[in-house]
């Protein structure tokens, strides 16, 4: 495999892209999970699907070269802004924004697919990920997004953490909570669009939440949870890509299954520790 890695550009791009999303997806995922916004990733991934379908439709009908990934990113960011708008309209029922955007995304996807009279294998790759789908331009786009996301999270870490822990306190202390939240949700949209090529639309939210769910069981403190989440995310992505390459299966499925195995192991480890604590308490 290492020989192929040096020989084939696409393989190199895929693995390097995988390593990048193994960092940025759990990185944003830590904030998503602790803020109880896990389903937002699902809603945005389905909006991204609508963008991808739109891009493929334009390509097929008008023979215009319009990267579906860029279209997906634009739709995803637009969807994230719309979610925020809906959350501010339905303050007491903020979660209602998620099914609205999710179903809207699926609805649009179906319409675009129907107008284009169906697509070939390419759409399947977008749904479940692929080890051979990352082009050079995709790679550089995802690299740019990754650097941007890591930089913004580093710069706004203390504000994002404060907002995640206690939104009311953040607002009282003078932090621009709404602007920071909007920034966060747009970053989430970008990460989802960037991850689609490897993990696929239907499984991208798993890469953002499952490593975090596992890390949460074991970590002491938020930063440690973030570090463990990235470690588990990388483990899942690397195993997914290697097995995908050798077994010729979409990597998304394996990435999710490995993440679930890590999660189960973390639960067992916690369970083994917990009875001891109960005995001590008694």
């Amino acid at each position: 495999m290492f020989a192929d890695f040096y020989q084939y550009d696409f393989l190199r791009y895929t693995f390097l892209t995988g390593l990048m999303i193994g960092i940025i997806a759990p990185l944003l995922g830590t904030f998503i999970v602790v803020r109880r916004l896990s389903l937002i990733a699902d809603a945005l991934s389905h909006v991204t699907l609508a963008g991808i379908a739109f891009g493929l439709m334009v390509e097929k009908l008008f023979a215009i070269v319009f990267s579906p990934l860029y279209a997906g990113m634009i739709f995803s960011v637009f969807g994230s802004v719309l979610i925020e708008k809906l959350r501010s309209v339905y303050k007491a029922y903020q979660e209602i924004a998620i099914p609205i955007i999710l179903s809207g995304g699926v609805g649009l996807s179906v319409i675009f697919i129907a107008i284009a009279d169906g697509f070939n294998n390419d759409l399947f790759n977008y749904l479940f990920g692929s080890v051979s789908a990352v082009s050079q331009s995709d790679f550089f786009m995802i690299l740019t997004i990754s650097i941007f996301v890591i930089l913004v999270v580093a710069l706004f870490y203390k504000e994002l953490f404060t907002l995640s822990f206690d939104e009311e306190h953040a607002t009282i202390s003078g932090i621009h909570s709404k602007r920071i939240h909007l920034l966060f949700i747009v970053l989430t949209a970008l990460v989802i669009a960037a991850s689609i090529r490897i993990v696929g639309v239907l499984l991208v939210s798993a890469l953002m939440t499952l490593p975090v769910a596992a890390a949460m069981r074991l970590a002491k403190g938020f930063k440690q949870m973030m570090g463990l989440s990235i470690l588990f995310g990388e483990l899942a992505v690397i195993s997914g890509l290697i097995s995908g390459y050798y077994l010729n299966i979409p990597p998304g499925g394996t990435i999710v299954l490995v993440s679930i195995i890590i999660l189960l192991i973390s639960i067992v480890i916690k369970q083994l520790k917990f009875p001891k604590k109960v005995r001590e308490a008694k």
Partner: protein
Amino acid sequence: MKEPIVSMKNVSYAYEEKTVLDHIHFELPQGSFMGLVGPNGGGKTTLIKLLLGLLKPDEGSIELFGKPIGKFKERNKIGFVSQKANTFNRGFPATVFEVVSTGLTAKVGYFKFFSRKHKAKVLEAINQVGMLEYAYENIGNLSGGQQQRVFIARALVNDPELLILDEPTVGVDYENVRRFYELLHQLHEVKNITLLLITHDTGTMTEHATDIVCLNKTLHFHGKPEDYTSLTEEDLSNFYGHPVNVVAHNH
């Protein structure tokens, strides 16, 4: 009389049709320890939200440290411990140090990182509430009384001149309530922090506060604790809006 650091003039506020504050005049003198009491729905928390700028009054004006609230920018002068301190997400994986450091976020400012000086400040605040040995424990693993101390440390980390506490002793056992009041007493006497405490625990509060304010839509009483404890059952019944029987007890 000392300069008031909070001044509300003719303030009214209504949630849609329901008026909760009706033309309130209220002053909090610097250096006082004021207890704010009243029935549920009497407007105590609304009054605090107005002071913190979370709500805007329908009528009247509010001044903080001599400035109209709209022009008051030194928010770090005010520390706040909310009711939510008792109901926060206990599964949130944050250490005591991380939680207390959030108190400094706004003060440090955007695009800046915590320095060694800031970290020392966080540890100092944790030490001040007697929680230093738990600094790197997850907050969810602590008892209710300990968590409450952590939230006070978060409010203290900015060296506030005014500390507002909204029913912080709900669900806390007697021993921790006693320690809590000891801490408040120390902050008031030694650090000279002005305190505004909302509570239903009038018995313990009257032992420590310098001023008591009774609020039930309008201001019913503003005076010294000894005047408050000498109120008759009839006075208290009028104030609470239902019959009140005073029962003396020693916990």
